[in-house]
């Protein structure tokens, strides 16, 4: 049992420390600092459009008692949840196909195809969706061919979900696929050997094993959609005021960075809650 010697323990601790330290250090300096500043900022004042350090709760009271804040808050949660669920369901058959129904070569090709859009500007892709959805746009012309009446889909919840799926699909498929690809094939074979049909195998073996990937993917989708302002602005026409739009608006009202900070902190709290519960749910062992 020589690895219990002090030297071994010490070198183990050092080894562990080398790995555990870098990220927290970086984040403390370059992330915790700014966030603490942000929290402090939420107590500051804005006098004659100039930011002045202070300690007062005025901003918190103002925002938390504002009707429009809560409307935006729940609207954002609703949209982000809907989008996360929809994109997870949309991606699931694809990740299944990637993991089980394609050859190695096809798998890499398909994954690459799915992921490439992630590397092209999201802004440009959302901007490009407009021509499909607008009056006299592409969909309108197509439907017009079959004389189906068409009212512009721009500035509708449908457009928002469309944009959110565009935003989150690549990352969701990657996360789901990584998880599903790593499922132990012997487990599946065993299930078949025990007489299960494919549907049963899916429910009993594949789904539970892929749960972390599915849930984490949905979590990422929720987070991205929650904080995004591009889709609500350019496909939603600013009609559905989400929290991200609200922050921009709040800043426009006379440099109200403290109030924007309040909204931001509320967003952080919410996302933290959602993230922690999702991760716990994802990795919970039965």
């Amino acid at each position, binding site marked *: 049992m020589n690895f219990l010697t002090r030297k071994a323990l010490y070198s183990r601790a050092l080894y562990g420390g080398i*790995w555990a330290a870098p990220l927290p250090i*970086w984040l403390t300096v370059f*992330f915790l600092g700014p966030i603490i500043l942000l929290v402090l900022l939420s107590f500051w004042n804005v006098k004659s459009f100039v930011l002045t350090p202070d300690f007062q709760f005025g901003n918190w009271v103002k925002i938390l008692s504002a009707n429009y804040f809560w409307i935006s808050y729940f609207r954002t949660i609703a949209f982000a949840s809907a989008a996360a669920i929809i994109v997870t369901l949309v991606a699931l058959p*694809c990740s299944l196909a990637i993991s089980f129904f394609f050859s190695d070569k096809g798998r*890499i090709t398909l994954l690459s195809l799915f992921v490439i859009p992630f590397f092209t500007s999201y802004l*440009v892709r959302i901007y490009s969706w407009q021509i499909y959805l607008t009056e*006299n746009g592409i969909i309108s012309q197509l439907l017009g061919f079959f004389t189906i009446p068409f009212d512009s889909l721009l500035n509708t919840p449908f457009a928002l979900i469309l944009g959110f799926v565009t935003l989150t699909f690549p990352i969701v498929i990657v996360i789901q696929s990584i998880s599903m690809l790593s499922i132990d094939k012997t487990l599946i074979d065993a299930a078949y050997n025990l007489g299960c049909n*494919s549907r049963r195998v899916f429910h009993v073996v594949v789904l539970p094993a892929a749960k972390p990937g599915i849930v984490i993917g949905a979590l990422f989708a929720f987070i991205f959609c929650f904080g995004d302002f591009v889709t609500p602005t350019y496909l939603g026409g600013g009609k559905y005021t989400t929290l991200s739009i609200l922050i921009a608006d709040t800043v426009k009202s006379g440099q109200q960075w403290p109030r924007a900070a309040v909204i931001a902190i509320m967003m952080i709290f919410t996302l933290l809650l959602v993230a922690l519960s999702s991760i716990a749910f994802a990795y919970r062992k039965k």
Partner: protein
Amino acid sequence: MRVSKNTRLMFKAYCVCIVLFLYAPIITNFVFSFNSDRFPTLPLGSFTWQWYHLAFADELLHEAFGNTLLIGLISAPIATFLGFAAAYADYRFNFLGKKILLVFALLPPLVPLVVVGLAMLAYLSRLGMSGTVEAIIVSHIVLAAPFAMAVIRLRFEQIDSNLEYAAQNLGASNWRAFYEVVIPSTKTAVFAAFLLCFAVSFDEYAVSWFVGGLHETTSVRILSFLQSAVSPRINAIGSVTFIVSITLILSAQILLMKRTKSI
């Protein structure tokens, strides 16, 4: 999974549909980048290269693109390394305060970009760093590292933790075990994380706008075009980035294929 041929076909057809959906805006982007009309409307106007000329002649865009590449190539490796380190530490060790560290490490993506931007700007300007390319790099690492950590952590889940112990039992030092066991099994995940970090940095517009000052990235340039000078120049830039990305991914794919072949 064993399924009927028809089911298999249905799934594959579904994937094709999804691919079409994902590429639909990219295709129209190409088409309209050659359209003479300033605003995208149907029917199409005449064919023209003018938007590409305008885009290529834009000095600011050259600078922005250079910045984007530089920032991506510096921040992605660092972010991947930080993410890997944290994922490995989480997977391998148990220590006091580990849960807190994990929560901490997952915090950055939870903060809305607009506010990260402002907070970083205020903070970095007190450090005398605001309006620099370094500021953007630093911010991007903060944003991307958690993703790298999450992706690599997922991979670690699947690795048999006994392998490393086995290597050590056979006499390997910590580092040797690491080199022989951990690196090979996580290579692909690390590469995927790297690409992810690069993509995050490449497309990031909100924070870059704030902390970059007069130094713009391609995404910042696109955003400012969207907000003010809406024109097919946006499409032209989008088309070029798309071609560049496809080339990158395809070459990466070829590299990967070669590697698996040689094993």
